[in-house]
């Protein structure tokens, strides 16, 4: 009998076979540094050179920095706005269609607006990410306040909780699982928007390096960075899956007896 981790490793490797064999065929049949399909070994060489320059480390740091700040800001803003809109009926009535129309704007086209208003700066990139990714969290919070069990609010009222207590002790804890689902949705979106902003503004981030490689017809560099982007995306996805499982499983907190 194989131990369980070996078994799952075996399964992962089996599942990876198509990619591995594709890369091997590519390596065997490609004619070196072609401008369209360079062999995978050339990707590694291009990456090695970027590493020696220190370009790739800097790019990863830069991309992560913008992505992280943007995500944190949009999460906090989205969550608090969602609570305000969800709880405050009047406010919601007045702003419904305004928010609906903001949401209808495809996230990427916010970039040119931000460029015009704020120029090429880090704060511009962060504003773009926040505007593009705030909606899933906000909407999930609002709709989960709508669908809250009416007994919860009645119970709070029966206990004579003040408005503030009702929000902090009843509403917020009950919307947290849904808010986490919203965050889970925004993470891939935030990655896409970060890369796109970098491509359009030609920064030193990962997107910027890719576009620079394409402009110089340095195809191995483009493929190499594409692999790095894929690996980073995979890890961020795995981490957010794990976080989601962790939070939704351990929420609401078990009562200590």
């Amino acid at each position, binding site marked *: 009998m194989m131990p369980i981790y070996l078994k799952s490793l075996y399964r992962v490797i*089996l599942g990876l076979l198509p990619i591995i064999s594709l890369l091997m065929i590519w390596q065997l049949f490609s004619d070196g540094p072609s401008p369209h399909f360079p062999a995978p070994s050339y990707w590694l060489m291009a990456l090695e050179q970027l590493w020696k320059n220190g370009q790739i480390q800097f790019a990863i740091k830069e991309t992560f920095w913008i992505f992280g700040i943007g995500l944190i800001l949009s999460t906090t803003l989205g969550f608090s706005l969602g609570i305000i809109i969800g709880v405050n009926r009047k406010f919601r009535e007045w702003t419904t269609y305004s928010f609906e129309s903001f949401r209808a704007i495809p996230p990427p086209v916010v970039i040119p607006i931000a460029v015009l208003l704020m120029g090429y700066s880090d704060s511009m990139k962060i504003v773009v990410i926040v505007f593009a990714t705030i909606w899933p969290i906000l909407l999930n919070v609002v709709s989960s306040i709508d669908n809250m069990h009416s007994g919860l609010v009645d119970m709070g009222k029966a206990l004579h909780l003040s408005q503030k207590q009702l929000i902090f002790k009843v509403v917020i804890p009950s919307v947290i699982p849904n808010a986490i689902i919203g965050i889970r949705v925004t993470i891939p979106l935030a990655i896409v928007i970060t890369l796109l902003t970098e491509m359009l503004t030609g920064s030193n981030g990962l997107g910027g390096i890719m*576009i620079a490689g394409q402009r110089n*017809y340095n195809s191995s560099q483009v493929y190499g960075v594409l692999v790095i982007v894929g690996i980073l995306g995979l890890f961020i996805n795995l981490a957010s899956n794990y976080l989601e499982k962790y939070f939704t499983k351990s929420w609401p907190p078990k009562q200590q007896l």
Partner: protein
Amino acid sequence: MTFVKNSSLSFRGIAGVFLFLFFWEILIRFLIQFDNLPAPSAILFSWFDLLTLKQYWEEIAHTLFAAMLGWTVASFAGIFLGLLLGLSKTFYKYTSTSIEVMRPWPGVAFAPIGLLLFGFSLKMELLVIILPALWPVLVNTMGGIVNIPKSLYEVVASLRLTNFAKIYKVFIPSAKASILVGLRISLSLSIIMAVVAEMIGSPNGIGYAIIREQQAMKPTNMFAYIFTIALINVFINYLLSKIVDRLSPGKPTSRLNQKVLVQ
């Protein structure tokens, strides 16, 4: 999933939009001078001008055509692969991890590759649309097939259907609701990715027009194009949700919208 529970028009909501526009107008006209943030009325006027241009409609047609073509290809490929994955254990065994690895790959990252391979062309745009739009269809088809109740397999076996009839008459109809959700997600994704691809490198379409007007420092035109794509987005989503509701049995699917959005 919307802010309003009942879908009837809310007077206050509309008033809110007009108030917002009014304050924007006042702010720009009287309080601060922003060179690059035009007043809503100025945007409206240049939008009217654009409406008379032939080029404007051609750009809309180009974007819609690219999005639809990409969506069709992605849908067929996604349904086909999803069926294979859902029905064949061996195929699943040998490809599942590869798919899990490929799925979180951000679609924009393929734009430079597309530029390298195809240059500034429709093909590059299609590559950037199809790759991300494939996954929602694929995953939802697979999920729909996997969740078919066991008893249906017994029915199929006892009816002695051919393989084709099995898939066409039993499996696809019973996974229909889930497949439709995937198709819908991937259509809105296709439109967005079409605009993205045009922004990075296709000398045609709305995305390119937005960037062109931005670089030409014509913010009124840029905003007009942005509102155009937003309107198209709303209209297509509305149309599709109507179609999906008509096609799918049981409760309206609009509630399934939760796990939507861009990858």
